[in-house]
């Protein structure tokens, strides 16, 4: 009788260990006898066996966002340096990118892409503004490509005299004479939030949204709201998140990670917003910015912006962070804000690209159906994954413009040009000084071939390394005054150095957008961007990336619903 009775099932832990033979001999034999008769336990063991296999398989996959070639090259170089120095990777420090993090990110709330940047130049504001304009375009090109946070290459060579910004997909770092800003470690304190009544202490400031005082000595967060009654965007609520203050030598590092819930107080839909985040006006590492394109916020509605920055503030002062509105773009393309970062052009271009892309996907859906839209999304995601994006360093003009001062500063290299069929401005000539993997002081001859005067240009700068790999290194802004048919010269003080494995082999330029004096814009059409040469190097727009993320995470129906909202 008892022989025919099925014994109770094997213990779950025994089942889990059985698949790798990690049970005792007795248990193993017992289990073998049992599973010969028990289908349920047999099935469960199969699940564990498959789980083991798939773990092994998936563990061999590189984490998302890692460009292995680049990372391996960087680690190899660091290992060599470590061996040469006879040290075993001495006190480990967090990555500069984590400390001074600029990270392309997608904010979960509303699936809004956030483009953020930070800069730490201890330069006069005029220089800072100029360089910030140039480098935010690098940031934009990196961010728009949805690139992962790859740690910047540890650069042991003197990168030049004076201050230098190192821009990489996950960070911007200030270096002085090639040496990173020293940041000795110290204990962190996390302030507990204590929100004071609005408008109590800080003087009102135009466009100010919020000032957050984060005391370095007594954990405390104090918020003073703007008194700017005209602002189309106002603070609805504030969540400090993981905001904390860490003393580092002569600085406070403010890990500023709040979520701001903002209200559209205007009568128009908001399409994008840029905020400046300021911990210290003059000290290195004190400023950052956050731009949020692809919004669709109706009047009276609220939306969230998550800030994820680490800022430096002088230690002699109580650290505070001021979040200011720098610009709001509305659905009618009107703009509000001081635009200190000169991002109005970019915000408008993002919006125009977004409209173009949504229209394309809607038309595709109507004409060719769901399958075609799905295929397009998959191709877009593949393209985002394929576009090469190396780490790019940008230096200021006075640091690296070696034309007059450095005899071994390389040689002039001609630009080749990529002319998009409908471009209103053509590039007819161009040079940059090239030395190994660094290109500086590019200048271009431009001609307005449209019938309208042009006042602003963005020039895409493509670099090809000696392995034949081409990538978009930067997008250079240029204010011009070009009447129809008129030619002019555009000179940029920026210098780029990419952290590839070889020298710059060739360069190409193309007009990526233009603004006419009547306030209208030209951006390349999707058909023009479909050029195989461009598709390899230019990633889809932020909006297309946002839509493909919706498809990837929520499926085709969610994507179609999203398209219907516009």
């Amino acid at each position, binding site marked *: 009788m008892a022989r025919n009775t099925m014994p109770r099932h094997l213990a779950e832990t025994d089942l889990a260990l059985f698949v790798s033979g990690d049970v005792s001999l007795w248990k193993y034999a017992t289990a073998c006898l049992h599973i010969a008769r028990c289908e349920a336990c047999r099935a469960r063991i199969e699940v564990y066996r498959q789980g083991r296999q798939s773990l092994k398989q998936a563990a061999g996959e590189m984490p998302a966002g890692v460009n292995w070639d680049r*990372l391996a090259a960087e680690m190899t170089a660091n290992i060599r340096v470590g061996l040469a120095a006879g040290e075993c*990777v001495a006190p480990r420090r967090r990555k500069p990118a984590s400390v001074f993090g600029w990270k392309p990110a997608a904010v979960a709330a509303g699936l809004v892409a956030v483009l953020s940047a930070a800069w730490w130049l201890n330069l006069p504001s005029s220089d800072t503004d100029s360089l910030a304009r140039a480098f935010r375009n690098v940031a934009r090109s990196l961010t728009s490509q949805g690139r992962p946070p790859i740690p910047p290459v540890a650069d042991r060579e003197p990168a030049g005299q004076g201050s230098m910004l190192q821009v990489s997909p996950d960070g911007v770092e200030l270096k002085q004479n090639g040496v990173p800003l020293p940041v000795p470690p110290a204990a962190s304190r996390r302030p507990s939030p204590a929100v004071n009544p609005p408008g109590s202490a800080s003087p009102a400031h135009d466009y100010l949204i919020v000032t957050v005082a984060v005391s370095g000595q007594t954990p405390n967060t104090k918020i003073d709201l703007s008194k700017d009654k005209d602002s189309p965007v106002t603070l609805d609520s504030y969540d400090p998140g993981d905001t904390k203050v860490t003393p580092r030598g002569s600085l406070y590092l403010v890990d500023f990670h709040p979520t701001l819930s903002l209200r559209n107080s205007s009568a128009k839909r908001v399409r994008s917003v840029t905020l400046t985040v300021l911990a210290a006006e003059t000290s290195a590492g004190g400023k950052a910015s956050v731009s949020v394109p692809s919004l669709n916020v109706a009047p009276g509605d609220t939306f969230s912006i998550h800030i994820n920055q680490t800022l430096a503030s002088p230690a002699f002062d109580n650290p505070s962070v001021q979040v200011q509105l720098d610009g709001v773009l509305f659905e009618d393309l009107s703009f509000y804000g001081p635009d200190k970062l000169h991002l109005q052009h970019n915000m408008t271009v993002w919006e125009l690209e977004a409209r173009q892309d949504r229209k394309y996907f809607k038309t595709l859906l109507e004409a060719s159906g769901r399958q075609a839209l799905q295929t397009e999304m998959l191709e877009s995601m593949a393209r985002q994954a394929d576009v090469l994006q190396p780490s790019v360093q940008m230096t200021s003009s006075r640091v690296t413009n070696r034309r007059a001062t450095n005899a071994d500063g390389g040689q002039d290299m001609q630009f080749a040009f990529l002319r998009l069929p409908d471009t209103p401005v053509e590039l007819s000539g161009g040079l940059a000084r090239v030395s190994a993997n660094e290109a500086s002081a590019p200048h271009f001859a431009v001609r307005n071939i449209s019938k309208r005067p042009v006042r602003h240009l963005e020039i895409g700068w493509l670099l090809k390394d000696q392995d034949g790999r081409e990538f978009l290194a930067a997008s250079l802004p240029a204010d011009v005054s070009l009447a129809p048919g008129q030619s002019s010269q555009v000179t940029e003080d920026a210098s780029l150095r990419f952290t590839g494995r070889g020298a710059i082999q060739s360069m190409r330029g193309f007009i990526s957008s233009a603004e006419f004096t009547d306030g209208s814009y030209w951006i390349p059409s999707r058909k023009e961007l479909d050029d195989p040469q461009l598709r390899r190097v230019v990633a889809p727009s932020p909006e297309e990336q946002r839509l493909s993320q919706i498809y990837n995470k929520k499926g085709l129906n969610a994507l179609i619903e999203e398209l219907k909202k516009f």
Partner: protein
Amino acid sequence: MGEAPGSTRFFDGVPQSSELESRFVSENMRRVFLLIYRIVGNVADAQDLTQEAFIKALQRQDQLKDLEKAAHWLSRIASNTAIDFLRRSGRVSFSDLEDLPEPLVSSREENPEQRVLRNEHRERLEAGLEVLTSRERTALLLRDVEDMPAEEVAARLNCSKATVRSHIANARVKLRRHFERRQA
């Protein structure tokens, strides 16, 4: 050359030593990085620790008795480096994983759909590993991915074999439940 009998210096003293070193590093780097990454859970730390492991290995070549076992010996150094790091930090943070944007790594032969599926597979694993404790995760990875016997895992984790078995069993059960919940 003054070396201890039986020791192997497989780089120094050989004309092409730097070349051999480079090959040793390049042939093993991806495997070592992934092992460490799965244990510590973020790219930045994994990068530092991978470098640290290779530097340790290359500085301690004298300890390698059998050239055939160089890969295994390196794995031991790598896992010890990662485990030491976990011990030092006292915790494991996976926050960096969430910050990573969309996938980048791909092979040209794959079609987009395959690539998406593969990325989903990897994301599933990463999410699953997050539900484990650091010891469970380390034990599971050393046992299932590195094929290390439970005895050796116990030695690495400085605990008994019974404890390691418990970690491995718990980890597998947790992962199974996690995946079932996600499927549901």
